[in-house]
């Protein structure tokens, strides 16, 4: 049954993962992600699942990996300092080709940082905070509705590519309460057959073992080449973004998450005044939507990247733009208002339109 609920967006994450078939949620308390586990601890038992509170993020991630070894899809939710602790195992899961769904409710860092929202984990999420040549698919929804809409897609990605999939949502969006319409519950993981790789005992298959290291240099090389090919396929096939009014734009604003959401109003207000401003909102942060930038029209004279950090996605924008137009940055993080306001963004776009 479709249902519209008025929830915090952390709760929307929990509700949508449960509706998509996730039956085990491993977590450790951390602000602002803790509401996910509070919600799922009450809700999952109603559907035959459970929230498993572990003793640390290290244990969370490893229990998630052990669960994935049985061919089932588990989830976790945390924030920056917790995500840092999970990195060893995310590298392990990427190498072991184990699927899972993760939420990083981003707050400001480094160190223990502060609990206010931020987008400071862009580099960690998209570059792989752990060691080795690996990538994780990173989705950056900008509302509770988009979290719910992306959840079935994330399950498909996790199983199709056998990889961890991470939602990065800034702490501001996570704490917002809004109406979200959830689709009919459906166990999307049941649509995928894991019999070809899961570690369920030799009754089902000849001996299998999960080895993320290598015994010979040749084996190690082959594993890394296999991963390289997989990441190339993801890069080619899975870029996602939203854009509007780019075709004739003079200035294009780029933002993800909450700043991406604000672009809609920003651009509308400039267009009302006849100013040619458009926007691109990356939805996948890895793979970064290079394709959106490959087709930028010659009318574009400047690009403005707005982030809730000191400038992280701007690196990817510059690579994608590849010198076709100057790329500028506006960013704020931390404090009582931890983000750029619409006025800040309008002021900067105005300057760029004036050719400053």
């Amino acid at each position, binding site marked *: 049954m479709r249902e519209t609920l008025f929830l915090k967006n952390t709760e929307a994450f929990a509700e949508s993962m449960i509706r998509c078939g996730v039956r*085990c949620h*491993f977590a450790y308390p951390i602000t602002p992600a803790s509401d996910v586990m509070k919600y799922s601890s009450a809700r999952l038992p109603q559907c035959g699942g*459970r929230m*498993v509170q*572990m*003793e*640390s993020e*290290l*244990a*969370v991630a*490893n*229990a*998630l*990996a*052990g*669960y*994935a*070894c*049985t*061919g*089932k899809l*588990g989830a976790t939710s945390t924030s920056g300092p917790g995500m840092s602790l999970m990195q*060893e*195992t995310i590298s*392990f899961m990427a190498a072991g080709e184990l699927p899972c769904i993760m939420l990083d409710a981003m707050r400001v860092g480094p160190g223990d940082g502060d609990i206010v929202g931020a987008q400071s984990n862009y580099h960690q999420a998209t570059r792989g905070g752990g060691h080795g040549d690996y990538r994780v698919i990173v989705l950056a929804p900008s509302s509770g509705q988009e979290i719910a809409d992306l959840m079935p897609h994330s399950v498909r990605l996790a199983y199709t590519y056998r990889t961890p999939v991470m939602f990065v949502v800034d702490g501001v969006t996570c704490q917002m309460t809004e109406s979200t319409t959830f689709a009919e519950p459906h166990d999307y993981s049941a649509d995928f057959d894991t019999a070809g790789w899961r*570690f*369920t*005992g*030799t*009754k089902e298959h000849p*001996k*299998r*073992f*999960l*080895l*993320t*290291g290598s015994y010979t240099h040749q084996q190690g090389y082959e594993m890394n080449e296999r991963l390289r090919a997989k990441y190339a396929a993801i890069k080619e096939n899975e870029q996602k973004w939203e854009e509007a009014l780019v075709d004739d734009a003079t200035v294009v604003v780029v933002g993800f998450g909450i700043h991406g959401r604000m672009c809609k109003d920003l651009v509308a207000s400039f267009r009302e005044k006849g100013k040619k401003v458009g926007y691109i909102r990356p939805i996948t942060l890895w793979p970064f939507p290079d394709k959106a930038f490959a087709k930028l029209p010659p009318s574009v004279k400047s690009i403005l990247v707005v982030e809730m950090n000191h400038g992280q996605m701007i690196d990817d924008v510059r690579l994608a733009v590849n010198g076709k137009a100057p790329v500028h940055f506006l960013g704020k993080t931390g404090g009582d208002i931890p983000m750029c306001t619409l006025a800040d963004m309008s002021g900067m776009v105005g300057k760029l339109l004036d050719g400053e």
Partner: protein
Amino acid sequence: MQTLADYYGKTLKFDKLFSYCPGCGHGIVTRLVAEAIEGLGIREKTVSVVGIGCGGFSHHYMDIDAIEAMHGRSPAVAVGYKLGMPDNIVYTYQGDGDMSAIGLAELLHAANRGMPITCIMVNNSLFGMTGGQMSPTSLAGQVTATTGKGRDVHLHGFPLLVPELMRAMNGVAYLARETVVTPKTITKAAKSIRNAFACQIDKLGFSYVEVIVPCPTGLKKKVEDAYAWSANEALDYFKPQVFINKLEQSNEA
């Protein structure tokens, strides 16, 4: 003609030579684990979660599924696995470095959680694979690669008594320390390992066996002398005993 497989069953593989050094205690413990699995008839539904170090190779000599976990996290992986497949049998096989140093938190919380998984710690009082450094279980005064003048307990702490840490935990169904330094003790170790798996099969709770073994290479001793050292020095501190056995209680009931 009777083959080794006819005699031992399928769990232990004979087509691969052990990578363990000659005289290493791992060889005996690996065989005991394989025999327990074979004897209990659980081979086809058993998965081993091995640690980093020499013990990480143990599953290569068995025809069972296996997961090689990182950095002592095997018990947490086993907990997650058991949640996914509650009717399968999962055990961790780790050395004292992997389990009592970097992985101690995961072990103790898994024990306290009481979920029916089995953990086996092969304790040779040092880090074997990385070159004989001090482990939490190195004895006072023990010379290792990183304690050239012997372990000074005031600097490095005291040798860690791992099962003693777990004996007050209600979730623990079987808890024992054994050794394989003599044929007689091997028979006792075999029984404890089997009991630990039996506890899991009966879903009685968490089970754990520590096995004191020699590492001739890390100790830099001849095989004979390494066994004598374990039998005398190590067992003097790490006393073999069964601390908890809920199998007996459940049989009595």
